[in-house]
């Protein structure tokens, strides 16, 4: 069994109004050092597969077809083997 953590984030070049709102909230709470906040998504996937290479191949395809939109988003992932 494999466990994939997929991170989907807005491309650096794209303004993130949600991140800005969170930054505003943190500053108003007194966290003076906050310079920038970007918000993204974490998608956790558990999958059965024969080997880590196949699992990686699958997750890559999931990201490029559905999980992220390449026009506005970047993605990365970590895959670990776990006990079922």
């Amino acid at each position, binding site marked *: 069994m494999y466990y994939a953590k997929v991170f989907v984030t*807005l491309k650096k070049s*794209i*303004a993130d*109004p*949600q991140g800005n*709102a969170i930054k505003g909230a943190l500053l108003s709470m007194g966290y003076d050092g906050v310079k920038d906040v970007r918000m993204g998504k974490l998608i956790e996937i558990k999958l059965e597969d024969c080997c880590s290479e196949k699992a990686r191949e699958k997750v890559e395809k999931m990201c490029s077809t*559905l*999980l992220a*939109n390449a*026009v*506005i988003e970047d993605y990365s992932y970590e895959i670990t083997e776990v006990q079922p």
Partner: protein
Amino acid sequence: MRFGVVVFPGSNCDVDCYHALRDVMGQDAEYIWHKADSLDSFDCIVLPGGFSYGDYLRSGAIARFSPVMERVVEFAQSGKPVIGICNGFHVLTEAGLLPGAMLRNRNMKFICDNVYIKVENSGTPFTSLCRDGQVLKVPIAHWDGNYYVDSDTLREMEENNQVVFRYCSPEGHITDESNPNGSLQNIAGVCNREGNVLGMMPHPERCVEEILGGRDGIVIFQSIINYLKGGKAGGKETL
């Protein structure tokens, strides 16, 4: 003419589109469940607004993989007209039938309001009865309407005249104040390179009768009907 209105789980403007086409425009219209596997009997496909699949993941991202979308892609590739309104526009960008993507509105608010849009290309099947520069008052109702596309693609789109509508002032000036959601260059609607697929965030089906507050949406549907009946669109040979 026979219009097909696709119904995804979560579509909520399907009935409005059906009413506009059937009761107001007097056309033949049918609902198409998102699992349908044939669009053979239709002349035009409408992807209506709403919240397909609850807007989970991204607006339109999951609907794009509904079985009917393979048929919609084939339908579009055969040159027949496809119009996506609001969430239907999202689905078309997610499916790769239209360039760009939609971001959250710049003010982070759901906006439900009448806006003005300027017809930038009257050579499409959807605008053939409009004048270039004509201003239409059409309502919007969305959270993710902030159109984005990279600069290289935008340049190509401008060269191919693919920007069909821009948000404008009532007098037709393209200003930042008249841009409700932060869309790049005030873009409110775009078509594909061939011109037979249109996506627009404003809802023409919500302004086809005086009781709804205006009738400016009628010209969009009338243009499609005119085009399907053999009227010219942008000097191109029609279907």
